[in-house]
C-alpha cells in the first residue's frame, strides 16, 4: 500500500524528514510517533501527495507519486486518500451535508445523498446534517471531519494529530471511530501523533 525508500525532505537548508525505508500493507493500521518538529506532518503530506519530497521514492496505492503531475495528482488524491486534520477545517459557510457533498463534488464522484446520510449516521451525527459547523460541538465537528474523509471510500485514511486538545474519553472515541471507519471499508489507516494516550491502540508503529 505504501512503500517509501530513502526519503528525505528539506525546507530550504533545514532537514524536516529522513526515512530510509517504510512499508505498509493494505488494511494495516499504523501510528507515526514523534515529538513535534520530527517530521510527522511532513511525512503525511508526502504520502498524501501534497508535497514532493526532495529525495527518495514514494509509492502509494499503486502510484509512484514522484511521477504524478498536477491535475492527475489532485485527481488521485481525491479518490484514493481521505485526510483528517488536527484543526478540522470544515467549510464554515456550508452545512454538514454540503461539506460531505463538497468532497464528492471535488472528487468528481456522483453526489450521493444516501451515501452522505449513511456515513453521517455511522458516525452518530446523522441528525446534524443541515447544521452549520459552527452550531456543532467540538466532538461533533470531529465526527463530521472523519465522515468527510471517508465519504469517497478512500483506500488510505490519514489523520494528523486527531486527538490533540481532546479529553481522554473524546480521544478514545476518535481513535475508535477512525479504526472502525477504516476497517469498515478495508482502508489503510495512518495516524500521526505525539499523544501518548493513543499508543496502546495500534500494533504497527513508526518512530520518527
Amino acid at each position, binding site marked *: 500500500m505504501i512503500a517509501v525508500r530513502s526519503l528525505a525532505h528539506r525546507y530550504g537548508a533545514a532537514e524536516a524528514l529522513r526515512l530510509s525505508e517504510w512499508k505498509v500493507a493494505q488494511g494495516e493500521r499504523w501510528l507515526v510517533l514523534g515529538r513535534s518538529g520530527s517530521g510527522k506532518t511532513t511525512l503525511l*503530506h508526502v504520502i498524501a501527495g501534497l508535497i514532493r519530497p526532495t529525495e527518495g521514492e514514494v509509492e502509494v496505492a499503486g502510484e509512484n507519486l514522484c511521477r504524478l503531475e498536477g*491535475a492527475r495528482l*489532485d485527481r488521485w488524491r481525491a479518490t484514493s486518500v481521505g485526510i483528517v486534520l488536527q484543526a478540522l477545517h470544515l*467549510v464554515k459557510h456550508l452545512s454538514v451535508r454540503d461539506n460531505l457533498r463538497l468532497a464528492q463534488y471535488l472528487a468528481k464522484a456522483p453526489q450521493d445523498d444516501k451515501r452522505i446520510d449513511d456515513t453521517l449516521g455511522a458516525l452518530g451525527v446523522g441528525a446534524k446534517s443541515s447544521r452549520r459547523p459552527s452550531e456543532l460541538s467540538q466532538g461533533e465537528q470531529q465526527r463530521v471531519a472523519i465522515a468527510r474523509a471517508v465519504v469517497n471510500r478512500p483506500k488510505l485514511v490519514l489523520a494528523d494529530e486527531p486527538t490533540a486538545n481532546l479529553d481522554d474519553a473524546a480521544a478514545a472515541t476518535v481513535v475508535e471511530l477512525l479504526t472502525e471507519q477504516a476497517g469498515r471499508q478495508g482502508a489503510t489507516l495512518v495516524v500521526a501523533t505525539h499523544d501518548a494516550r493513543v499508543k496502546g491502540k495500534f500494533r504497527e508503529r513508526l518512530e520518527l
Partner: protein
Amino acid sequence: MNLATLSASYLRARPLNTALSVLLLALGVATIVLLLLVVGQAEERMQRDARGIDLVVGAKGSPMQLMLAGIYHLDAPTGNIPLSSVAALAKNRMVKQAIPLALGDSWKSYRIVGAGKAYVDLYGAELREGRFHQKPMEAVLGAEVAARTGIGPGATFKGAHGLGSEPGDEHEGAYTVVGVLAKTGSVIDRLVLTPIESVWQVHEEHQGPQDDADRKALEEAREVTVVLVQYASPLAAATLLRQINSQSELQAASPAYETARLFSIVGVGIDALRGFAAVLILAAGLSVFIALYTALEERRYELAVMRTLGASPGKLFGLLIGEAFVLSLLGVILGLVLGHGLAAALGAWLESQQQYPVTGLEWRPEELWVAGIALGVGVIAALVPAWRAYRTDVSRTLAQG
C-alpha cells in the same frame, strides 16, 4: 453542488460585503442605462419632430430659441415677421414648401398654434374624431391635449395670452373644438391647432372699434411667427440660409445644426454623468477586489482543505472568478431593473409636467455593452485574488494550523 452553487453559498454567508459590491455596481449600471434611455429617446424624439423641416425662419434673435419655439414649442418665439415674407419665401425657387405658423396664445399651458393643413400633414397626423378646422375660431386638438383635458368636438374654451404655465389675460373670443387628432408620438400631440386667421382675429379684437381704414391698416400689418421651410433640392442648403440671414428683418435657423449645437452644450453634463457612472462601476470593481482579496487570509484553510479533497489549483481559481461573476451578474441585473424603473418614474413625472415623455419599457442595444463591461470589470477585479488562490501552498498552510 457545482461551482455556481458553491460560489453563491459563500456570498450568502457574507451578506454585507455582497450587498455592498452588488449595490455599487447596480448604481453605476442604472445611471448609465438611465442616461442611455433618456438621451436616446430625447434625440429620437427631436429628430422625429424636426423631420421634413430644413429651415425655421422667424424674427431676428437667437437661432436656437427660434428652433425651440418654432419646431418643439418649448421656448418663447423671437418675435413676429410680416405676412408678406411668407409669400416671398414661397416664391423662392429653392423652397419646396413654406408652412407659416402663428404662435402666442395657450390654453391650460398647451400652445395654440395657428396653422393650416400642411402643418398637420408634415407629421402625418390623422383625424381621430370630427373634422379639420375650416373657419376662424375652430380648433383641432392634439391627442394628448384631448386625453388630458377630457374634452372633444363641440366643447368651447378661451385662450390665454402668453405661453407659460402661468396664463396671462384671457381673450374674449371662444374657440370651438371641431376635431381631435390621432396620436402621432410627435410634438403635434401637445398642440391646439386653429386657422391662422383665429390668431389674428383674437389679437385684433384688442384694438377696439375700427373703421374701414383702420381695418385695412391692421390687415396690412398682419404677421406670422415662424415659417417652416422645406428645400426644393439639397443644393438649397448651401445658399438659402445665408440668403435669408442677409436680409435685415428675417432669420433662418437649421434644425439639424441647432440640435447638434444644443446636444454639444448639454453633452458636457451628459458626459459628466457618464463619467460619474464609470467611476461607480470602477468603485464596484474595487469593492469586489477588496472583498475577495481580504477574505483570502481568512479563507486560506478553507482553500487548502479543498485542495486536500482533490480540488485542482484551477478549480480554486475558477471558484473565485465564479464568485466575482455571480456578484457582477447580480449587480448588472439589479442595475438594469433600477435603470428602467427610474426611467419609467422619470417618464411619469415628466408626463405630469407636460414635458417630453420618457419610457422605461424600451430596450436599447447599447445596454448589452454596459452589461458586458460591468461583468468584465467584476471578473477582472477577481483575477489577482483568484491567482493567489491558485497559488495556495497547501502543505505549508495546513502545517501552520
